[in-house]
């Protein structure tokens, strides 16, 4: 399952052990096991309803795992284990875990009542208690990185989709996360705006940011990913080096899916 990519350091950034998620009778995840090393990029693909977004949301505990274990940088997510028993985690600690995990959503979810700068400094100031001047300085740096310095005072509604998503990425990076989750970051964008978002993500990958990306952009997967995971029906069907999986899929399901999206 684990791809032989970069040299693995001692603790993997993400370690999923037979992760299951069900909503009553509906089983969305049926035992997902994978490992992402620090600095690696893992791309999750699969048809809609395959559970890839749910898995991503489990990683920062937006969804509760119902069976199996999920670790980020060695910490068990969402629960505390004491003497072999799991305890529900107090909301304060769950929030603490999420601080270090950045998330980018399909529909950006920028705060419409705050400016671009206001969006970026919101969490550093109110969650991490960073001084406003320092937060602003960092925010301007990040805006520069995503190429939107001149939009600092604009409101999200005045930006295009691609610009909004780049601000959303900057907002997540402002918390200095050790892991970035991208949930179909380009699916809501017009085709000609997809590139600018992917460019920012490629740059992050080259800087060694650990990333988990749910996407349908196979070109991005081929170019950037260290691991490609194909999910269907709540399980991992196939995983491995993206170039190999894309060129020479082993399973019928993977072949059928790839023939439709490529």
């Amino acid at each position: 399952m684990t791809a032989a990519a970069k040299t693995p350091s001692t603790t993997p950034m993400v370690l999923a052990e037979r992760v299951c998620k069900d909503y009553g009778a509906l089983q969305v995840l049926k035992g997902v096991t994978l490992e992402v090393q620090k600095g690696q990029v893992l791309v999750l693909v699969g048809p809609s309803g395959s559970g890839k977004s749910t898995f991503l949301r489990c990683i920062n505990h937006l969804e509760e795992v119902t069976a199996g274990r999920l670790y980020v940088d060695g910490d068990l997510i969402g629960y505390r284990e004491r003497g072999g028993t799991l305890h529900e985690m107090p909301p304060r600690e769950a929030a603490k875990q999420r601080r270090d995990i950045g998330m980018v959503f399909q529909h950006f979810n920028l705060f419409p009542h705050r400016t671009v700068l206001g969006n970026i400094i919101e969490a550093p100031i109110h969650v991490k208690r960073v001084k406003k001047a320092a937060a602003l300085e960092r925010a301007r740096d990040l805006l520069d990185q995503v190429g939107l310095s001149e939009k600092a005072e604009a409101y999200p509604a005045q930006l295009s989709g691609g610009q909004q998503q780049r601000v959303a990425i900057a907002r997540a990076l402002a918390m200095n996360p050790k892991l970035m989750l991208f949930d179909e970051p380009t699916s809501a964008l017009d085709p000609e705006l997809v590139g600018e978002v992917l460019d920012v993500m490629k740059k992050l990958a080259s800087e060694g940011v650990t990333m988990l990306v749910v996407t349908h952009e196979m070109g991005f997967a081929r170019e950037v990913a260290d691991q490609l995971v194909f999910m269907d029906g709540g399980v991992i069907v196939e995983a491995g080096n993206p170039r190999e999986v894309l060129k020479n899929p082993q399973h019928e399901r993977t072949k059928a899916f790839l023939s439709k999206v490529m």
Partner: protein
Amino acid sequence: MTVDASSPPIIHAVPLRHPWRWVAAIVIIILVLLFLYGAATNEAYGWATFRKYLFDQRISRGAWNTIQLTIYSMLLGLVLGVILAVMRLSPNPVFKSVSWVYLWIFRGTPIYVQLVFWGLFPTLYKNIQLGVPFGPSFFHLDLQNLSIPFILAFVGLGLNEAAYLAEIIRAGISSVPEGQSEASTALGMSWGLAMWRTVLPQAMRVIIPPTGNEFISMLKTTSLVTAIPYSHELYGEQRNIAAVIFQPIPLLLVAATWYLVITSILMVGQHYLERYFSRGISRTLTDKQLEALAKAQMPGEGHI
């Protein structure tokens, strides 16, 4: 597709006629004129008394008390309403149930009954003490010696209003897309912080117009505080005068005129408030967003 150079002639159609609208309007105007003539010539309306008391000092003082009652009870209702709405939506089952029971009682009993009850409050509880049970007392308020009908009046109205405002605020909060609280959660915000910083500010747009309605409605509901009994607001003062001069009809008309004038002023205010908030969404979005979109679609805008 080819574009025709010559534009087609502008349509000049014969407009539809609406004869029955005219008939209905004329009939209604005649009926109204007949009623006005009847009212003007009817002695029982007491128009001389109406003119005499329209700007009486007791009436204008009563109107001022009505406005004060409205403002205080709405302020109390708003503060309590926000707390109740947030409690109702919180993940805490204790808060949820407390809020539910509050709404159940205050929306489930008539406001008039509640006001009579608050009027009897000093009979039920002779004084209010704050302290350790069976131990020392830190705070003492004697309800018997205080003249508190005004306080009871606005507290009674405010507690009732809180229940209705809580539902309005809850609807406003629910109107904010789920992605907003999700994004806040993902950034490590607590539930309370996300509510205060992200959700409530956005809910205001939905909350404000119906709250304006409640404000106007409250102005009229203050006439019920006669149940406390408190009789120094507009309706009460009017009744006090009418009881002395035995002329209830002209004084009722005086009070109605004042209510109508104040309500009209509030309605104008509400109109502008609503226009301001609806403009906030539509106009700024289209103009600037279109401009931004046009820019973004220009080639060579891609960064990095």
